[in-house]
């Protein structure tokens, strides 16, 4: 070593990076020439790490230290906690007499200057008086053997930490949000007194569940700063497990150690993480013991996971609120805990939240929810009422969700999020576009007052959303946005999506078609906006009973996405899921199954089997398996989906309830109604609890339960349930809606089975007319109503009228789904039967043989629909006096049924009257034999 070598003290200070720049650079220069000193510096750096580990770990015997009997004037009762910062005791105070929590800071953590600060700041903490804050009664120092030992005396809170409380009490989302709003209040109170927590996390919030309602209480307010002004110390002195616990809730500015940047918005960020965890059970960023550095990097640089991606039921407001609290930049967060609390309360009251970009369908849907009575025809568009069986509702829901998510994503004026996927210029353009959409929507809603809509049919003083939307659509049609194609697309998408929610499918399709025209002109055919429009149109056409166009649109959307380099695999999967749903409705089950299995694989790869996304698609596939005669496989798949929901949302979830309903219905069809009923009842209770007594899904479940009771011959119970569903539906949507038509139809078929023909006919005619008015005369649901009514008329020997109706139904079905669809064939079977009774044998033969080609397999007939067709052929040929042909067909029947054809031949209706033919939606009518 040369004469000029720095001494070891200097080199250690250099290693600790505490020297001034000039001295440091001189040492660097020296180190370049002196290998001995360079080696010593490397050694010292290692020593520093070790010294830190020794400080952090102490002797390792802390947990075994005996309890002191007294600390200050407090009598120690027992130790109730132990951690890196010190020890927590339950202690008793004499005056006033009370039990307190006494927290002793570990010796060596505080210097003399910090002790002074500790005394001063603890007085501030003592002034924090709020129901949501565990009060600091006193802070002092206790003379222990090794010098002064600081301690805090705090209110002793009897209750579990926040997450445990939520889990133990099975709180639903609403209750969790209420707790969060109370926590926001408490945090805001402290902020108003100039106290920042800096270490907010679920374990620092206990819930006093002896209070009514339960009161969250935040512990250790301001303690982090009192003990350690450079919050980093909090992590240095805790165990690795706790480091993770602490880092996970740190704002980016805390994680980078930017102490001067810490302010009340750092607490707002922590509230965002707490909300995220309380609502989803997960953290928004990956943090791990293995790499604290990676965890910090994730917090600082990675976009947090969105709540909606974990739990779709959180999409919309909740995701927006939590997302805003978790914004990387402080200016983009809520500027106070009070703002966040206010938004949570707005959401709980179904009012528009401040954080949400208003330029979406969102404000309208809020308006609609608060003014249910005003909104004619709000129906659950995801509900498929098919002869009492709910189909793959999750799939259809995803279509809406996907569009809503896209809408929300487009609308999110969060430049930081946009910057991740677009250039700064694009982000700016997006924000400007959204501003334009926002203005348009505001203008529209402002204009939607009775005074301003005098030209429209305004009943009394109320203006319906529909009227407001029509006014908006007129305005756009008049060219108010013709120079802003992107804004026009966004506005039309918004109007279209809202119209769809209102059940105005034709008008909705009109808007989206126009949107697509503009998108094609502006971005070209092979573009994402065009694909999104096609996807929406696919769903809408499906609802409009135009399956061929629905499939065509959905196929094109998938094809375009497959060519887009920026399209994510999950978006692609969602589109494929929608296509599968449409194809399945059309009877193209083979292709649908392939698609669903593919989507299932993608979901599993991306999110794992224990995810809502996987469970949703599994449920869809299960529906298909059930419909294609594989009930055991379907049951297995439903149960798989169910177990995911049970695990992820033990307290319930709307999609969970749907799977319960579907499985219940399946079990019913498998003659296991006693197993199915409890599931349906559970679903009903869950939906009522989560969504309220009047939610459309409640109607669906009531309907399905009614079907189940009907099957179990509990006719009184069934009738009561049908009536309850109908009353609920009328309350929600008035005397005319698509769902109401299905319910009337189902009750009609119920009466028909009871032999109450007059009541049945009246209800079926009402349903038929309603469908005609609402859906038009080429809709499959209308065709199904025709089929059902024709069947009833045939039973009353009104063959002529029945024939006409069957023919109309078949015409619609042929146009919509072709002759090879079993649904079309079934109507032809019934027409053949009616024609037989009319003596029109040749025509009857033509219809029955055409149907047999579709329904009757080459081998023995086992399926009831095929058996019915064959039996009608036997009867036809017997009536036609062609015994050889009759016998030839009779041999195709199973032995047990062959004998039954003869006596029944004179009363063909008696045979089929045993077969349920209630028709509600697109898929049910086709399979009376099921």
């Amino acid at each position, binding site marked *: 070593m040369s004469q000029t070598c720095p001494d070891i003290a200097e080199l250690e200070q250099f290693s600790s990076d505490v020297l001034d720049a000039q001295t440091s650079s001189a040492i660097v220069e020296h180190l370049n020439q002196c290998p001995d000193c360079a080696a010593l510096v490397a050694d010292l750096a290692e020593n520093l790490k070790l*010294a830190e580990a020794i400080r952090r770990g102490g002797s390792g015997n802390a947990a075994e230290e005996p309890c002191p009997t007294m600390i200050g004037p407090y009598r120690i009762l027992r130790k109730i906690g132990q951690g890196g910062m010190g020890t927590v005791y339950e202690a008793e105070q004499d005056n006033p007499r009370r039990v307190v929590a006494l927290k002793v800071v570990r010796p060596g953590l505080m210097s003399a200057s910090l002790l002074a600060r500790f005394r001063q700041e603890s007085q501030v903490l003592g002034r924090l008086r709020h129901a949501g804050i565990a009060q600091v009664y006193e802070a002092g120092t206790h003379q222990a053997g090794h010098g002064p030992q600081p301690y805090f005396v705090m209110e002793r809170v009897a209750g579990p930490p926040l997450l445990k409380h939520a889990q133990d009490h099975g709180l639903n989302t609403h209750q969790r949000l209420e707790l969060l709003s109370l926590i926001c209040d408490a945090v805001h109170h402290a902020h108003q007194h100039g106290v920042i927590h800096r270490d907010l996390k679920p374990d620092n919030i206990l819930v006093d569940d002896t209070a009514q309602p339960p009161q969250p209480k935040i512990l250790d307010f301001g303690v982090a700063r009192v003990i350690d002004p450079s919050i980093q110390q909090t992590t240095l002195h805790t165990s690795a497990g706790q480091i993770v616990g602490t880092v996970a809730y740190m704002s980016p500015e805390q994680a980078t150690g930017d102490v001067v940047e810490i302010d009340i918005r750092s607490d707002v960020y922590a509230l965002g993480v707490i909300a995220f965890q309380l609502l989803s059970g997960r953290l928004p960023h990956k943090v791990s013991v293995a790499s604290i550095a990676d965890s910090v990097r994730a917090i600082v640089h990675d976009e947090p996971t969105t709540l909606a991606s974990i739990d779709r039921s959180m999409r919309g407001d909740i995701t927006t609120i939590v997302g805003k609290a978790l914004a990387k930049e402080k200016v983009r967060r809520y500027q106070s805990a009070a703002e966040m609390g206010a938004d949570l309360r707005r959401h709980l009251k179904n009012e528009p939240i401040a954080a949400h970009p208003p330029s979406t369908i969102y404000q309208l849907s809020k308006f609609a929810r608060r003014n249910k009575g005003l909104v004619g025809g709000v129906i659950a568009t995801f509900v498929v009422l098919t002869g009492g069986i709910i189909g793959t509702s999750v799939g259809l829901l995803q279509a809406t969700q996907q569009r809503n998510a896209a809408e929300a994503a487009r609308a999110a004026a969060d430049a930081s999020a946009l910057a991740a996927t677009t250039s700064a210029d694009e982000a700016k353009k997006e924000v400007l576009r959204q501003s334009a959409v926002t203005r348009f929507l505001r203008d529209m809603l402002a204009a939607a007052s009775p005074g301003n809509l005098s030209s429209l049919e305004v009943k009394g003083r109320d203006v319906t959303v529909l009227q407001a939307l029509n006014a908006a659509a007129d305005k756009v049609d008049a060219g108010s946005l013709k120079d802003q194609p992107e804004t026009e697309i966004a506005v039309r998408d918004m109007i279209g999506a809202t119209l769809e929610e209102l059940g105005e499918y034709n008008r909705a399709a009109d808007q989206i078609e126009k949107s697509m025209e503009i998108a094609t002109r502006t971005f070209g055919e092979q573009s994402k906006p065009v694909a999104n429009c096609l996807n929406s149109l696919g769903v809408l056409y499906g609802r409009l009973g135009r399956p061929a166009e629905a499939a065509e649109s959905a196929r094109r959307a998938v094809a375009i996405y497959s060519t887009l380099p920026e399209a994510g695999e999950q978006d692609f999967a969602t589109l494929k899921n929608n296509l599968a749903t449409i194809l399945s409705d059309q009877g193209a089950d083979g292709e649908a199954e392939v698609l669903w299995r593919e989507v299932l694989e993608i979901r599993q790869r991306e999110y794992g089997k224990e995810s809502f996304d996987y469970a949703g698609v599994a449920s869809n596939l299960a529906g298909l398996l059930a419909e294609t005669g594989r009930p055991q496989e379907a049951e297995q798949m439903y149960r798989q989906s169910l177990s995911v929901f049970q695990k992820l949302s033990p307290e319930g979830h709307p999609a969970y309830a749907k799977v319960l309903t579907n499985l219940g219905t399946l079990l019913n069809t498998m003659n296991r109604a006693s197993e199915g009923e409890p599931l349906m009842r559970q679903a009903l209770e869950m939906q009522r609890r989560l969504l309220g007594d009047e939610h459309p899904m409640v109607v669906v479940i009531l309907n399905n339960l009614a079907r189940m009771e009907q099957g179990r011959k509990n006719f009184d119970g069934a009738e009561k349930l049908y009536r309850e569903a109908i009353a609920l539906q009328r309350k929600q949507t008035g005397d005319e809606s698509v769902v109401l038509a299905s319910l009337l139809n189902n009750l009609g078929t119920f009466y028909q089975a009871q032999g109450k023909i007059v009541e049945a006919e009246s209800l079926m005619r009402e349903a038929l007319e309603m469908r005609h008015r609402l859906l038009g005369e080429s809709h499959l649901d209308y065709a199904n109503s025709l089929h059902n009514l024709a069947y009833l008329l045939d039973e009353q020997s009104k063959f002529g009228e029945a024939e006409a109706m069957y023919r109309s139904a078949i015409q619609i079905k042929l146009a919509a789904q072709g002759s090879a669809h079993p649904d079309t064939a079934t109507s032809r079977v019934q027409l053949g039967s009616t024609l037989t009774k009319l003596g029109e044998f040749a025509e009857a033969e033509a219809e029955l043989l055409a149907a047999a080609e579709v329904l009757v397999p080459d081998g023995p007939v086992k399926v009831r629909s095929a058996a019915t067709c064959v039996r009608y052929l036997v009867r036809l040929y017997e009536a036609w006096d062609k015994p050889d042909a009759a016998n030839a067909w009779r041999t195709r029947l199973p032995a047990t049924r062959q004998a039954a054809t003869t006596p029944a031949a004179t009363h063909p209706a008696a045979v089929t009257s045993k077969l349920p033919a209630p028709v509600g939606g697109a898929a049910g009518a086709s399979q009376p034999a099921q």
Partner: protein
Amino acid sequence: MTWVTTATVLQKLRDYENREAWGSFAERFRKPVVSFARGMGLKTADAEDVAQETLLAFAEAYRNGKYDSTKGRLSKFLFGIAYRQSLKFRRAGAPGAGGGKLAQPESGFWSEVPDEDESHASGVWDTQWESSVLAECMQQARVEFEPMTFRAFELVVREEMPPPQAADELGIPIKSVYNAKHRVLKRIRELRDTYESEA
């Protein structure tokens, strides 16, 4: 006092009859397991039981050749056993089951809140393991150094006293304090490396 590496301790453990070997083994590993179990929310008596069960299970596994040092570190292997044992005791301590009882968590800021999450437990274990290893190493260093040298180290590292103050208290030059700190820390690092060496 002779410094014994983990490899030596384990080697002797193969001999069932060697009671001394069991003693060295238990002395070395009992403490981190007890501390870990306490960190998992168990009472001291239960934590001691967890340690006993864990060490027995480990010794059995080791003697049967189930522990392969090339497949993972000893501490992780031991953790796996200690974690399962702790969970077993925690479950046994659930209301109505008799046995141990969980410590009531008070505050996350202060306490190790009992948690069945393995990553949390793993964090608790790492801390306790490191702490235990360092305590052993410091114990060895204490006997190897002059008392003054070791005291200087204790003052500036464990008690975080500024070096000038430590120099005053001990009546030695500041440079000597720095040197003492450096020498002791370096030795502890060496001891730690040999301690953890398992082969």
